[in-house]
């Protein structure tokens, strides 16, 4: 690891669609994946992040900067996370949970998966299949039987108006 100097170190991250981003090392190392690269001395040039697109990476960096600017105050960090995620749609959240998983950022992973759970809570089985791209591999009889086992869980489910 490089010796501490007076000036903050900046890292350059590259998304899988070749966008470049500058970010302070102190914020970027919220990602364990990036921290490991820094500690192994592999962060000299550009850090390629092959599993994250530019739009998602921009959002993740906004989060990194935002959360690392908040001193150790769990309440404030939580309200920042809530606000940060409040206007994101399901597709964006899904991209972010994948990015958080790839970058190994546990606090973002926790917050995004909780937000996705909140969005999913009252959704139908069909909605989940469409959004997660899951093929229904039950036969109609099997599916009816599985649904019958926990009938009460199908009460109060939202009707699917969005796609």
């Amino acid at each position, binding site marked *: 690891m490089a010796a501490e100097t007076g000036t903050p170190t900046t890292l350059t991250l590259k998304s899988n669609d070749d966008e470049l981003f500058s970010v302070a090392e102190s914020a970027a190392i919220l990602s364990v994946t990036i921290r490991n690269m820094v500690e192994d001395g592999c962060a000299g040039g550009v850090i390629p992040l092959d599993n994250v697109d530019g739009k998602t990476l921009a959002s993740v960096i906004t989060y990194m900067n935002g959360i690392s600017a908040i001193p150790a105050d769990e309440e404030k960090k939580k309200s920042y996370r809530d606000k940060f995620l409040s206007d994101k749609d399901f597709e964006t959240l899904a991209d972010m949970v994948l990015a958080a998983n790839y970058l190994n950022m546990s606090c973002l*992973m926790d917050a995004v998966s909780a937000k996705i759970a909140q969005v999913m809570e*009252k959704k139908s089985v069909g909605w989940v299949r469409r959004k997660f791209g899951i093929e*229904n591999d039950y036969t109609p009889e099997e599916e009816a039987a599985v649904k019958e086992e926990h009938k009460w869980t199908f009460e109060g489910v939202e009707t699917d108006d969005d796609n």
Partner: protein
Amino acid sequence: MAEGNNRNAVHIPIHVIETILFKLPAKSVLRFRAVSRSWRNLISDPAFHRTYIRGYQNSSSQPNLFVSKPSYRHGVSLVKFEGGKFVAVRQLVNPNTRDWSVSCFCDGLVLLRPPSLSNYVLWNPSTGATMEFYSRWSLSLTSAGMCYGPILDEFKVVVIARSWLPDYIVYSCRTGIWEKRRKPFAKTDQVSESGLYFDGAVYWLNVDDDNPNIVKIFYFDPRDDQLKILKKPAGAGGNNDRPIFLTCLKGRLCVYSNDAKDETVVRIWTRNENNSSWDVLMILVYDAREQKFEGCDKPVGFGEVFVPYVDNRFFPVQKVARPKRKRNTLHSNLCELSD
């Protein structure tokens, strides 16, 4: 990953899906078993259950639900305490047509007792599965509790005689064996009837027969099957005019009792974060004479009739031991989720 037109769906790896499912209430999780075979298998995995249940026990953000006991002959109501009132959320229908009563709750399982006193039924309201087993004692005055023993991954039922008998008995749902143990103190005439399950142990209150000012909180520790004593908060209960009760709120063990001067004032204590002493959690005004809710005609008090219940722990049990007598169909029923 698909681009362009077909960018409607994302493909999320199964361990990420698992992380998301852990954060959903049981109602949604059980519904999503119907999504696909792989989701059903994931949700039915005993390892998933264990992590799921533990996650919710440690969560303080879950709403507090209570189980009402008044209508237990036909089932019990699940109620929520909201805006100073109890509101019925759902009715759990008793699987037995006979006159069985609800004894206690743990992780979404209910222990039922018939009037005959010699047997018990474990009931899982979310799957409808039941398992019957027989007691070595048929005493009329007993206190029961049920808990999950993490070491051997099993449920245990504890029965304490409210009498001079020096022993209590522990039933292992895995092995089907009753074991006798010695009580740490002799007087258990006034032990609360239902043990409260909280964070891996079962708690009871015991009022001393000769001196009602002596109230003990004791608990069953499933790691060594012993009954142990916990100090009560100073100022809580302590005589017959001011009974004290145990409950679980916001993921913490709580004790509450009515105020000495005004019985509509309820004072609630909770264990502090290090679990080393009691702090006052809140003081609320609750007039038992005015409380009614759906399915219950009589006014209900805060303590006598409500047992805390977390709907999110409302989850199936795995691997219940084969009962001693001819109950194979029920057993396979209980294992229905492990297919």
